């Protein structure tokens, strides 16, 4: 019979909420988030692990959710873009994106936010070249990346209490 009748039950913590859900074994994690949980902020652009539109945080690691099966989320702690803001208030990171015009169509934005958030763990402000390397797993066809790099630099500066050097194009 078709695989879609093959289902497995998984439990996970998603954006602070613990859920148990039965999922088709062949469903990937991005579809699971979007279709089963209604978390449509995570996007899909290639289902091939290249574009990065589906990037989320799983157990504090940045992953491309189109390359994971939903069943692999069993027991995991998952964060998506929907968990970033504080109620109606944008987080510091989101504010930095807005201030620096780091988004146009916004389709790539959830992916970049997930990567940017993970860079906090470096404990310092990355150089622009480092930021560019780190975000290269997510594509943006609209902005040319400059606003994204500036926003992340600014944000890391705020988080780590250092002012980022600005206005040097890189």
């Amino acid at each position, binding site marked *: 019979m*078709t*695989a*879609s009748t093959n289902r497995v039950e998984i439990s996970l913590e998603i954006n602070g909420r613990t859920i148990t859900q039965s999922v088709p074994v*062949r469903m990937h994690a991005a579809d699971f988030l*979007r*279709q089963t949980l209604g*978390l*449509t*902020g*995570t*996007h*899909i*652009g*290639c*289902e*091939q692990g*290249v*574009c990065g*539109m589906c990037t989320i945080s799983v157990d504090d690691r940045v992953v491309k959710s189109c390359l994971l099966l939903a069943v692999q989320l069993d027991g995991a702690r998952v964060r*998506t*873009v*929907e968990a*970033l*803001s504080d109620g109606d208030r*944008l987080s510091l990171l*989101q504010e930095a*994106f*807005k*201030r*620096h*015009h780091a*988004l*146009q*169509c*916004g*389709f*790539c*934005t*959830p992916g970049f*936010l997930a990567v940017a958030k993970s860079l906090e763990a470096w404990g310092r402000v990355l150089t622009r*070249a480092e930021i*560019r*390397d780190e*975000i*290269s797993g997510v*594509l*943006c*066809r*609209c*902005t*040319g*990346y*400059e*606003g*994204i*790099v*500036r926003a992340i630099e600014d944000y890391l500066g705020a988080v780590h209490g250092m002012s980022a050097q600005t*206005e040097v*194009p*890189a």
Partner: protein
Amino acid sequence: MNFQVTAGVDMPADTDRAIIGRSVPRKEDDRLLRGGGLFADDVTLAHQLEMAVARCPFPHARILRVDTTAAEALPGVVQVLDGRRVAELSEPLTVLRPVPGAPSLPYYALARDRATHEGQPVVSVVAVTRAIAEDALELIEIEYEPIPHVTDMTATLEPDAPVLHPDVLESNLMASNVDRAGEPEAQRDAAHAVLADRFVVNRVAPLPMETRGIVVSWRSGARALDVRSSTQVPHLVRKQLAESLRLDESSIRVVASDVGGAYGLKLGAFPEDILACLHAMLLERPVKWIEDRMEYFRASTHGREAFHDMMIAADKDGRITSIMNEYTTDIGGWNSPFGSSQLSSVTFTGPYRVADAQVKRNVVLTNKTPVGAYRGYGQPEVNFAREVLLDRLARRLNKSPLEMRRLNMLRPEDLPWTTPSRAIYDNGDYLRTLEMAATAVDYERHWAASRKPRGDGRIVGIGLSSFVERTGYASARFLANRGSQFGAHESVTLRVNRSGGVDLYTGVSTFGQGSETAFAQICAQVLGIDYDFVRVHAGDTGASPLNTGAFASRTLIAAAGALKEAAEAIRDKVLVIAAMALEAETDALEIRDMAVCLKADQGRSISFKDIFNRAITGQGIPEGIAPGLEATAHFEPRSASFSFGTAAAVVAVDPATGDFEIERFVMVHDCGVPVNPLLVEGQVRGALVQGLGAALDEELRYDPETGQLMNGSMMDYFAPMASDVPPIELLHTEVPSDVTPFGVRGVGEVGTIPPAAALTNAVCDALVDFGVEISQMPLTPERIWRAIRAGAAS
């Protein structure tokens, strides 16, 4: 602030009231930053089915037999359509911007007997899930007979090439058009120096991160087709759907909420849109189709592919006396809604004073994915040919390319200028952008120095590239003469609400260009209302007045006028109501802080909210004044406006390998008065990086033997990543356009135009002692290395 305004710029002073010209935060951002955007695939309707499409795997094939029995028997499959059935149920797709002089090539949403490109839809399936629909595709038996194909643009014009549409055409030449002025041949024959070459422009993918998509439902009792589509032209999609589906437009509502990038690709109805609608109508169940990335590469539209045979003639001082350009664009297997690039003909003489010139456009068919609009639409292509040839000619004449441009550039006093193809450039200062770019990279000193390798063995080269960009259309009459199915205007409806705000309705959908923000700024400024109190409702044909849509960098120059007129109409009525309430004459009133007050006594005032409520209820308004407070305006600008500028690239080339580094990329650009400088910078940078991608790496390649796309996946097609982008410096000048409201010029596409020529010229400049000449994009190290070898051999 993000935006660097640099010397030479006349920015208007920010008064505390002025909101036009300020980098206010975008209206669009909050929802998008919170994962609250509403893209096509974010909409899921109750009882929805999903569609998948079987596509021809060959570039050219007869379809001998289609057997869908096994697919139909698969549990979960609800309906299968083939080409025969679709031809009964619908009309062929229509074209929005036909190629002048070309026969229409009507085609149905599904191929019947013959498919003319890889990826053309042949059978469509709807099932309870996309996965089952795709499983069903595997069970469909389609017997193809591959027939001779042609994918090469030169070969397609050979007498032995298989003719793609033999019932209407004798060859694969779809149309030719000539524009000319003066005596270009005589001038050429009399010239001191004449150079000509063929410039080859790569086929590229526009590549929005959100693919195409549609969610459609039909209520037959109500005759209501409700369409959610990822499109930049909802009203035009509605028109096309009505035509193909044999419905009245009144039965169709098209909504584009958030669109994840468009760039010209999402400019009209595609076969899959018709198919999803047909299924939904037949089944009376909602149907969703979201294009997957493999489909995207083969079945949407591609951009650019062309070659330009360009000739420039000059006198001994370097004055250009004649330009002749015959170019050929590939339209692929069918005429897409917008067709291949047409603007090379408009801007082929660039920012130069050339009176004797001719341009000829040939449009050819090949067995490849159709070509449609892509940001720039012919302007990057012709700019590459002209600017590279101009540098070559300068070197031939022992002149600096800077000097050559200086000598030939149109001066402010030459403008307005009617080009040989009868476009009219509005006012501008082209030379200033050239001088600013040259100064920024210290061009004069570089030119005079020798091209010796640096310590790291690399040779530095600098290339210039000057350009104009047509933004908007000349007029509705101009479009009518070319058979275009749309106008040159924009429209808007403003309607006040009881909360004291204004609802702004526009048919322009939101795909990243920031129109919600810019429109709200203009409305706020004219009406005197807070920016935060303007809510923009975009892209819904059920709510917005009929319009044209967002393409051709035309939205703002037309919409600004409509916004101004509508906001003035609201303002006038606000003052009339306030005059009655305050027992004063309207001249004695002024608008301040969302209220109307007496100029002489600001303490006596009435709030907008009060006035709006009076108007909405009709209670407390002057006698003889109709209740309600809303205004719709349509506006067509006097003519197109031309943005302009100059780019300069500094590269360091390794003469042994052809590898090169872009050390600086400077772009000086004028888009008139920027409504929001932050948005302008974003548009320029984004387009520039698309232009760099096409100049450096991007190329859709077809196997000449099999006729198949060789790199049609995200793994194989290299769009620029963050780490690929070189340093970019933007400089702006600001000459307000004298043909548009507020002096704005379009800005959406300009960045795509100069990069290829600037970089090519820089590499050729570095390698001038090696005799390197490059006439083909993309500019890969391999191509440079080959040119070095060719130069050494000759």
